């Protein structure tokens, strides 16, 4: 295996009160990878990033870059650059001087600075705006300047702290693709912090979902979406139905096709499981709306009677809001081409046993 570019080893940060903001986080970043730290506010993702940048000192643990310890180095001696949440462009300098700042501080020759700053501004399509002051630019343009200011230094790792948070939705989508493109094109490793799961799914090679200072799940976006390890992950990533149930048969199948049968609202439903469960254990059946459809006579099992509450047409799909016999809600996507049901009607739906997952809290 090749040497990871950045390694976090048992990284821990406690602030005054003693509660760990980051709790024993270990993580390896491969060169050129796009890894996202995803989590709600207070999950420790930003603190982790700030420790890597050098703005916070870890209480415990080690950060290695190319195998060398980084923890004792001040920020200005680390071969990585940060794109800040509010861009933090220097208001008293022109765009050009902002972008050239890092090179000037490293005493790069003047002619080289001019050349590299020009290239960096062209790369983010701001070649014409070098003489402007940051405040004369739109939010999206400022964001590009911040990106150019970091990338012009050719860092080993680029840290991005919710850089798109201040942009409107359309611009954000554009920038997501652009960031992914830059990551591929330049071969620079990206460590990206966001609370936006959709953003994380769109851009990342891998996602580390953080919860209470720990990594809850570390996997590729597809795996995280399809095989969440806990109710928390299933709930955080995308839209999901979470049905409370009790395990009635926790030992079907082998490691490759393990299944669990759960009793939910009086009905026994089968779903995929990543481990054996004890009968009688409480568990959650997590299933996405697109994996539920109206039952056909061919569906022998995993049938559930629901009452239709509401229909919402969203353009791509019709979302059907229904209720189980115990009153808990269930959302499904109605198949295109089938006549939608009437609110108030009772219908039978089928839950995919391969796609539904049995999860703990």
């Amino acid at each position, binding site marked *: 295996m090749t040497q990871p570019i950045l390694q976090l080893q048992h990284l821990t940060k406690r602030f005054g009160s003693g509660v760990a903001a980051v709790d024993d986080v270990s993580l390896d970043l491969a060169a050129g990878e796009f890894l996202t730290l995803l989590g709600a506010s207070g999950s420790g993702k930003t603190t982790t990033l700030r420790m890597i940048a050098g703005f916070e000192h870890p209480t415990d643990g080690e950060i290695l870059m190319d195998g060398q310890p980084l923890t004792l180095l001040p920020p200005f001696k680390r071969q990585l650059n940060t794109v800040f949440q*509010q861009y933090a462009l220097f208001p008293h300098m022109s765009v050009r001087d902002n972008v050239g700042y890092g090179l000037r501080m490293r005493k790069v020759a003047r002619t080289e600075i001019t050349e590299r700053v020009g290239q960096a501004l062209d790369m983010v399509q701001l070649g014409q705006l070098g003489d402007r002051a940051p*405040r004369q630019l739109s939010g999206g343009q400022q964001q590009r300047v911040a990106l150019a200011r970091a990338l012009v230094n050719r860092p080993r790792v680029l840290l991005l702290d919710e850089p798109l948070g201040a942009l409107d939705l359309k611009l954000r989508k554009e920038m997501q693709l652009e960031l992914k493109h830059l990551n591929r094109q330049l071969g620079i490793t990206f460590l990206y912090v966001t609370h936006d799961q959709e953003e994380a799914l769109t851009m990342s090679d891998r996602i580390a979902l953080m919860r209470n200072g720990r990594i809850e799940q570390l996997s590729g976006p597809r795996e995280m979406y399809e095989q969440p390890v806990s109710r928390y992950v299933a709930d955080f990533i995308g839209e999901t139905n979470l049905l409370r149930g009790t395990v009635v048969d926790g030992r079907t199948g082998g490691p490759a096709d393990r299944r669990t049968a759960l009793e939910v609202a009086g009905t026994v439903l089968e779903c995929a499981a990543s481990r054996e469960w004890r009968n009688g254990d409480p568990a959650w059946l997590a299933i996405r709306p697109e994996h539920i459809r109206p039952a056909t006579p061919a569906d022998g099992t995993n049938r559930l009677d629901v009452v239709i509450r509401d229909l919402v047409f969203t353009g791509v799909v019709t979302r059907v809001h229904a209720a189980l016999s115990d009153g808990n809600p269930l959302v499904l996507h109605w198949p295109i081409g089938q006549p939608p049901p009437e609110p108030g009607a009772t219908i039978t739906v089928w839950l995919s046993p391969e796609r539904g997952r049995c999860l703990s809290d």
Partner: protein
Amino acid sequence: MRAGPPVRPSALDRLRASRRLRTLAGAALPVGWVTLLLLLPYLFLFAHSFFRLRNGQLTHELTLENYGRLFGTALYPQTILFSAGIALRVTLASLLLAYPLAYLLAFKVKRHRNLLYMAVIIPLWVSYLVRAYAWKIILGQEGILNGFLMSIGLIHEPLTVLLYSKWAVMLALIHIYTPFTLMPIYAVLEAIPVSFKEASQDLYASRWATFRNVVLPLSLPGVIAGCTFAFVLSMGDFIAPTLLGGNDSALMVSNLVVSLFGVAFNWPLGAAVSVVMLAMTLVLLTLARGIEDRMNYGGPAGGPADRRAGGQGPTVGRGSLHA
């Protein structure tokens, strides 16, 4: 329900509804106040500087001879320059004291920050006279400082050079005006987002380079404002020189004005000196204002006010330091 008689707007309603009337009503008091107590006296002062004094009697004949005497006699320009020299040194010393303290308060002190800030500000609530007198007690022949120096055996006779010298005057002025220098500097430093310093360090700038390239330039408007306060206020001061100044230096320009109006009863000349000082102050304030405006970057880039597309704030188009 029966409809009542139509309700007509009262005079007060009309007043409330009219933006212009409301503005006028609201402005009447402060404008009147300023006119009565500030503009009119200045006008009188200005007029007096052109009146002629004949045999000790004030006449209303117009003349320029007051200004002629002012600029023709070495005493007056010299005194003005002397005062400016004192004020300049007081300003520099205040800046050297206030800047590091403001920096500590804004960036280093986390707990008790407000307490410390209050400790700097509270002395301003004590009467100026009391603070000036305090220096008499400290520096006098029987004073605290002499007593201390004698008790540790460093000197055997009380020093007489401490009090009644321009040094004593400057000391007191520095003491009194340093908080005025500190406040605007602290205000601008505190407004600098921590992320600016972090971004600078992230871009390979050491702490010192960060200070020199980011913090210092961004704090200059506060420095200018603070220095203007210290300079203008200490230049016009006459109480500290009266209480603490020696024979050589009791005469700051304001003392001169006081004696011209009082002892010498030469109001026209006193008025002329005042007008010249007033003009100097106005020039200085205008310059300072101009520099401050040029360095006003409209807050941190990307701040809420700047996030709107285009960011075309009212200050756009003014030069920046590096433009």
